[in-house]
């Protein structure tokens, strides 16, 4: 029975789609697991050498906007007290160094080696106490996904969409999709509140809450789309557009064919 089901499944036109989807999920989660382990090491105390190296990197790469002592200028905020978590999030996702001013800093290829990013984080966190990099135990995604889902829907879903597909804000800003965000970056974003995102400190969402949210976000990515192609999970706008363009368009074409004379 199982063999027959397997045979049928292999022959079905969905087999290729399923194979590609499975490949993507495996590489995606593998990548997430690999990146999640990096900041854990950075979470340990930084050495004086790292702080010095970070200061040099800061002066040559960041000081033109953030000021020589990270005091901030008209173009960029002060970095005193933002902590290592903020540096790791902004630089590891490629948002910093910023490419151009605009409504929102864009994700782009990472500009620094991991060791250099750690050094920058070391120097910035030496300026004043601030949120540190998360320790690995909160990123292990062993939380309660169902509880995390409830917390996510109350605190995050209005901007980031109920399954983390992202959404639009005002004036060209947007809440980015969280579908390919590593556990460490989700944690760092919550604790630091990058750009226009509010801060969700541990007195608001406890460490357990954060772990549950991360677990939910990773769990929801592995959920199969039972209803077929999910059109980016963006909801009624995309689904409505699809229905109007393809369904109504199809009906119009059929009507035209019905009325046309045969040649």
């Amino acid at each position, binding site marked *: 029975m199982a063999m027959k089901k397997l045979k*049928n499944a292999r022959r079905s036109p*969905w087999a290729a789609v399923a194979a590609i989807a499975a490949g993507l999920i495996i590489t995606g989660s593998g990548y997430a697991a690999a990146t999640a382990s990096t900041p854990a090491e950075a979470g340990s105390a930084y050495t004086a050498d790292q702080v010095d190296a970070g200061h040099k990197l800061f002066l040559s790469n960041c000081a033109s906007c953030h000021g020589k002592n990270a005091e901030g200028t008209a173009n960029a905020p002060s970095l005193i007290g933002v902590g290592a978590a903020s540096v790791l999030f902004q630089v590891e996702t490629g948002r910093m160094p910023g490419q151009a001013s605009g409504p929102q800093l864009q994700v782009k290829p990472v500009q620094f080696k991991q060791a250099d990013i750690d050094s920058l984080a070391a120097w910035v966190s030496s300026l004043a106490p601030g949120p540190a990099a998360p320790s690995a135990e909160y990123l292990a995604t062993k939380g309660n996904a169902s509880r995390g889902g409830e917390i996510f829907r109350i605190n995050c879903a209005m901007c980031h969409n109920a399954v983390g597909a992202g959404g639009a804000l*005002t004036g060209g*800003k947007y809440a980015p999709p969280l579908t390919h965000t590593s556990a460490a970056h989700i944690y760092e974003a919550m604790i630091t509140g990058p*750009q226009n995102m*509010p*801060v969700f400190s541990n007195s608001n969402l406890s460490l357990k809450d954060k772990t549950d949210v991360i677990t939910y976000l990773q769990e929801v990515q592995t959920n*199969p789309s039972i209803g077929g192609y999910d059109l980016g999970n963006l909801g009624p706008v995309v689904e409505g557009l699809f229905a109007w363009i393809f369904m109504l368009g199809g009906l119009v074409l059929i009507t035209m*064919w019905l009325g046309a*004379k045969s040649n």
Partner: protein
Amino acid sequence: MSEKKNDLVKHEEVEYQYDAGLAKVNADKFADPGIEPHRVRMTDKSVKHEKTAARQVAALFFISIAGSIFAIWAYFGFRVYGFDLNSIRNNALFLGLGIALGMLGIGIGAVHWAKTLMPDAEVSEARHQTRGTEETRAAALEVIKLADEESGFSRRKLIRRSLYGALALFPIPGLVIFRDLGPNPSDKLKHTMWSAGAKLMRDPSGTPIKASDVQVGSVFHVIPEGLAELGESDATYGKMLEEKAKAAVLLVRVDPADLKESDARKDWSYQGIVAYSKICTHVGCPVALYEQHTHHLLCPCHQSTFDLTDECKVIFGPASRPLPQLPITVDAEGYLVARSDFNEPVGPSFWDRKA
């Protein structure tokens, strides 16, 4: 008066050709184009084309047969395993595709058959008169008169009048049941669960919030004290939802220097911590998209935007009123508490809401 009359007369005397505009109908504007010249189809001209078309129609019918058989096979072939949604999806998808092919094959085949092989001579059919002939009309009148005579409708006053009475009364029960739309919700729409001294609680855990827990730039989703407990029992769960729909609050801390507060509201905030109703004044969606640096609150439904630092005034979108502010302070232990209920009804406008 007489002057005016003269005036009018003068105008009438002036020969002025008004432009008829759209009211003017050109007699020859829509000349009957007649039937367009008949175009002979390829299937009428060549036997080869005719045979091809016949084969196409037959092929479409065979596709229909194959589709129907596939649908039957798919029903059994794609087994449904309990509530395994994947198996239900596959079963429904392939069963549906088979049925669709079965029906589309017949439909498209029949249309193709009619268009290519059946006679395609153009025929015009004149519409018949809508008015009946004089004889038909006279006969109809005869029937009505006969019915009146035989039933005695005109003669029997008692029956006629009692029937009028019955006809007048039978729709009334339909109107009476509209009473169920009421009664008016009295002042339910004007008050929420908030009261003086009610602690601000985290949603959904229902834990109290200390002022020191709220950093600048952070957002708390807040429910009133006692609401989370309502949700714990099935009996009061509905009540919890009803109250939450009115009482949901967003708590934000901004730099006090950024706040523009009117004198009347100076003591409604606590060291830059402000609490606003989360229910949009447009149609009641939860407004919770807070931008930390612009201090904009955006409603996701219709993009109404509120300026949190300026008493949540509307700066964009269809909402017509600012979000109501919840006056807050701290109690002796440092927990955030409400000073009172909202001083105006929350959410969208309703029939007897002032302003």
